[in-house]
């Protein structure tokens, strides 16, 4: 029954969007983290999705990898901060909070889409099981 596969497909979509939501939460939580060197500073993390296809050209989605953003870590002059370097600068995280908010909304909508697909399939399967009663 193909409809049972829909649960796996929509489930994989929900799983992938959850990972995306997790990275967004992590990025937003660390938006004000500071470090002494640019290497130690927090880098925004983003997942890359990849499709998992079977022979019938249908299938779910998986998180291929989670990459760290290459964006520059901005310096801030805070000589009284114990984390500052010898010149009195600290390195901020390279998280773009606007981008993260957009990502969060997109992930949330995609998740809802998958939930909707799952609910509809469940309804159809229940009706199929009740056939002839």
């Amino acid at each position, binding site marked *: 029954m193909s*409809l049972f596969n829909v649960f796996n497909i929509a489930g994989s979509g929900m799983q992938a969007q959850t990972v995306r939501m997790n990275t967004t939460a992590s990025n937003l939580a660390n938006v004000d983290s500071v470090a002494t060197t640019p290497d130690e500073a927090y880098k925004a993390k983003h997942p890359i*999705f990849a*499709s998992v*296809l079977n022979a019938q050209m249908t299938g*779910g*989605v998986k998180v291929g990898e989670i990459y760290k953003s290459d964006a520059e870590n901005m310096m801030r002059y805070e000589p009284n901060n114990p984390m500052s370097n010898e010149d009195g600068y600290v390195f901020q995280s390279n998280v773009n909070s606007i981008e993260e908010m957009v990502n969060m909304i997109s992930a949330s909508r995609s998740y809802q889409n*998958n939930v909707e697909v799952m609910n509809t399939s469940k309804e159809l399967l229940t009706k*199929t099981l009740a056939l002839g009663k």
Partner: protein
Amino acid sequence: MWVSNGGVEFVKVILAYLLLDSNREKPKLVFKKRFKRVNSMAISFDKAFGIQEQALDLRSKRSEMIASNLANADTPNYKARDFDFKTALSQAQGVQQTSTAKVDQTNVKHLSLDAGRSASVYETLYRNPISPSLDGNTVETHVEQANFAENSIQYQATLNFLSHRITGLMSAIKGE
């Protein structure tokens, strides 16, 4: 008079018939003959559901395909897929009608070749996006949602047709 005694008369006739049968050498043959006649009745459960069986199968396949599109709405370079339902259904019918291979059914309990044959012959097509995105993804969520909803409604329509066929068969069997 005869009507009120009808039941008793009927039992008598049956008893006489059975006695006659038991006097024969091979009483089982009679039973076999009767069984065969019942088997070739007008109601064929294989043909009762007609095209709806394949339609239901294809509808569920299509819902799987669209669910796959929706799950991959954010996957770079994913191309949205679908198939033409009309073509797929006529192909599925063609497969069933042109199956020329024959297997002898030496026992009534043997299944025919067509039993359980699923309609899985269809050509996967790629959707033409109205506004393709830069990452090479051609899934347009609203289009997929609309298609999924349409497919679900059609699935339920097919279910309704099937359910009516079953109701018809049941009333034919019960004779009410």
